[in-house]
């Protein structure tokens, strides 16, 4: 405890502190994919550091038995590691107290096989969450399940999504107090996005907040005070759409949720509006492609900010919101840092939704600037997709400056480590027909590497100077999450299978390990029952970027995988299917 207070003192002395360095779990555990409610992915463990990481050795492995994209985080609680696989969403518990880390139990939820047909971007799952002796996770076919962490027995399950309407679930739940917060996927299927709170003891639905439609269903009441005038009005979730287009308008909630206990607010982004072809939905398309702040108990919205009003490029707003307290222009502000798909990193006052700054962290030619008076992006007309025309060289591409892959923040270096891609695209919009349960997109896309020729990068972003401290380039998009530690390290994986440790201060490569398959998972670190620090990651290439391998796409067609065909033709020569946990420690 003394040690922890000391750390806190240091953080305070550094002026910039993460709001929630103290997680709801002990330093040795890692109970939710983002590690803490502030979504820092920062661990206080220091045994493995930038001096000794070169000696890091493989400690154990475990096969998931599945060969699709593994985006989940191995989480650790109560001397047990929990991992949920891609479809068929098997949940494994591994006993960390025994040699070889054997399986304690496995839970097979048996989701509907047909759900594979409504998963836009590989049959991924972004992880489970542990709280109070229960493990919560979502299944591809739209169920949330609670499993007893000790016995592996089902406590409850509830079906929330309907695959016949194109709904699936891929996100990791977040447990806040007695509520499990979960959202749907299916923004490419004309679904209507929502976030739902479930009773953690029974699975009963407590409230649901839609991302489109009438105020009563979006949970916009007297407490809703958006900072910008365009977001004030009645039923804007209907009026900013033509006709009843809001009913299939997307805004799905498939990314990350943060929680500020002091404000008692949750923060999360909403997905792209559907269809991609923006000509079919004139208007700002609220409340898609933006960030909601909601009361954690009632779900009632406090504020909303839209990064991409009338989104033109599939720029979902679901990326992580990292909660930080920063000194901005001389005064301490409660900030939410959000690296968006549109390529801008936003610093937003999380108490009221005011954009304090927005700077591009990648090459962006679709938006010239963000007007801080109105909060609106200035779209570049030459890059606006128009029917009957092909627009060339749109940067960033549909998956954005970065996609779901979560960043990490270190209070020691005061840097945000952003794993991302460097890709552009040519695009032509086409009429999209709505047929329930089938894609609702309406765009032909051809992706390719952006300036510099590299397709991925890790950028260490300094939010105080609003520029990159350093950047590491990778051949393929960096589709894995990032992890940072008090050992002054940053970990991430590459799609060709390298798991790497960098010096958090300089970005220098200190250690690497070649896994059997490309890495798109979220690395985590924990202290084992033996007292040693371990670093764990799932390998298993796939996801939207890796569908060329996991979905065996034929890249003679540039539009394969919604445009990745032209960008990833060489991936099969560099990696292969896999599904394996790798855990490392010092000898």
């Amino acid at each position, binding site marked *: 405890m003394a040690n922890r207070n000391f750390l806190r003192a240091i953080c305070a002395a550094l002026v910039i502190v993460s709001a929630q360095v103290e997680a709801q779990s002990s330093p040795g555990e890692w109970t939710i994919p983002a590690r803490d409610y502030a979504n820092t992915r920062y661990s206080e463990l220091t045994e493995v550091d930038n001096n000794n990481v070169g000696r890091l050795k493989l400690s154990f492995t475990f096969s998931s038995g599945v060969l699709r994209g593994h985006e989940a985080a191995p989480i650790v609680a109560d001397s047990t590691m929990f991992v949920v696989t891609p479809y068929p969403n098997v949940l494994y518990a591994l006993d960390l107290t025994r040699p070889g880390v054997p399986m304690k139990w496995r839970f097979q939820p048996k989701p509907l*096989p*047909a*759900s*594979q*047909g*409504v*998963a*836009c971007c590989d049959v991924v799952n972004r992880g489970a969450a542990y709280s109070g002796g229960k493990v919560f996770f979502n299944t591809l076919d739209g169920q949330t399940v609670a499993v007893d962490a000790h016995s592996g027995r089902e406590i409850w399950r509830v079906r929330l999504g309907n695959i016949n309407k194109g709904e699936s679930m891929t996100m990791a739940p977040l447990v806040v107090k007695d509520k499990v917060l979960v959202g749907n996927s299916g923004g*490419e299927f004309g679904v209507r996005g929502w976030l739902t709170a479930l009773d953690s003891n029974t699975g009963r639905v407590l409230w649901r907040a839609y991302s489109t439609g009438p105020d009563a269903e979006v949970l916009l009441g007297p407490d809703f005070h958006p900072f910008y005038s365009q977001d004030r009005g009645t039923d804007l979730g209907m009026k900013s759409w033509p006709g009843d287009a809001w009913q299939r308008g997307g805004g799905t909630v498939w990314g990350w949720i943060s929680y500020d206990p002091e404000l008692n607010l949750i923060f999360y982004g909403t997905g792209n509006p559907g269809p991609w072809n923006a000509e079919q939905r004139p208007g700002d398309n609220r409340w898609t492609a933006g960030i909601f702040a909601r009361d954690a108990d009632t779900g009632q919205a406090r504020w909303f900010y839209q990064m991409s009003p009338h989104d033109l490029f599939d720029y979902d707003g679901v990326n992580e919101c990292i909660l930080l307290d920063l000194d901005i222009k001389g005064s301490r502000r409660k900030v939410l840092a959000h690296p968006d798909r549109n390529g801008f990193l936003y610093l937003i006052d999380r108490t009221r939704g005011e954009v304090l700054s927005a700077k591009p962290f990648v090459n962006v030619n679709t938006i010239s600037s963000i007007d801080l008076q109105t909060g609106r992006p200035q779209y570049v007309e030459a890059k606006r997709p128009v029917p009957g025309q*092909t627009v060339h060289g749109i940067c960033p591409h549909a998956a954005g400056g970065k996609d779901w892959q979560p960043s990490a923040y270190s209070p020691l270096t005061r840097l945000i480590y952003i794993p991302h891609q460097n890709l552009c695209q*040519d*695009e*032509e919009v*086409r009429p*999209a*027909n709505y*047929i329930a*349960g*089938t*894609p*609702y*997109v309406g765009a*032909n896309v*051809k992706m390719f590497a952006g300036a510099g020729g590299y397709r991925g990068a890790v950028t260490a972003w300094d939010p105080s100077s609003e520029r990159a401290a350093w950047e590491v380039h990778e051949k393929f998009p960096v589709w894995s999450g990032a992890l940072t530690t008090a050992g002054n390290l940053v970990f991430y994986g590459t799609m060709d299978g390298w798991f790497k440790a960098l010096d958090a201060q300089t970005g220098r490569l200190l250690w690497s390990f070649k896994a059997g398959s490309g890495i798109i998972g979220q690395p985590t670190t924990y202290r084992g029952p033996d007292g040693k620090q371990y670093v764990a990651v799932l390998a298993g290439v796939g996801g939207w970027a890796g*569908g060329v391998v996991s*979905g*065996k*796409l*034929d*890249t*003679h*067609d*540039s*539009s*394969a*995988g*919604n445009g990745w*065909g032209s960008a990833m033709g060489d991936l099969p020569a560099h990696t292969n299917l896999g599904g394996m946990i790798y855990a490392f420690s010092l000898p």
Partner: protein
Amino acid sequence: MRFRFPEMLALAVVCTGTCGCTRERRDLSDVPPSASIPRLTPSQYDRQYQSNAYAMSQGKHLFEWFNCVGCHAHGGGSIGPALMDADWIYGDDPQSIYQTILGGRPNGMPAFNGRISQTQAWQLVAYVRSLSGQASKSASPSRSDSLQLKEAEQSQPRQQMQPAAPASSQHQ
């Protein structure tokens, strides 16, 4: 033997009449949708669809219109498998593809029975087979109205199909 111009012209007209008209034949009668495979002999299928440019051009249009393109892209695959390669989980023969389209398949292929007519289904079958070079070259689409994403169907090399597994032992 030497042909003079009028004789050559006559020969050309006859050729166009016999070859060209088959290629361009349009059967505009239609039947209500049904999941049961209609009786269609291989030669009927070939004449009406697989060697018929109009049918395959319609198929290409329907492939986008009914969102096939959303899952299979322009043959390279996406949510659903690629259709321009030699791997066919449920068989590459016209009857199997017809059944796949109308009846759906358990791992995510939705059933289009009730949404499209039999003729449209066969037009789609013919077009889908052209993606892997299994249709008549002279009748396969030679161009796209959209962004150039791949070689035209007409230029697609014929894939060497794997022999289909017996129906009872089909996996997945």
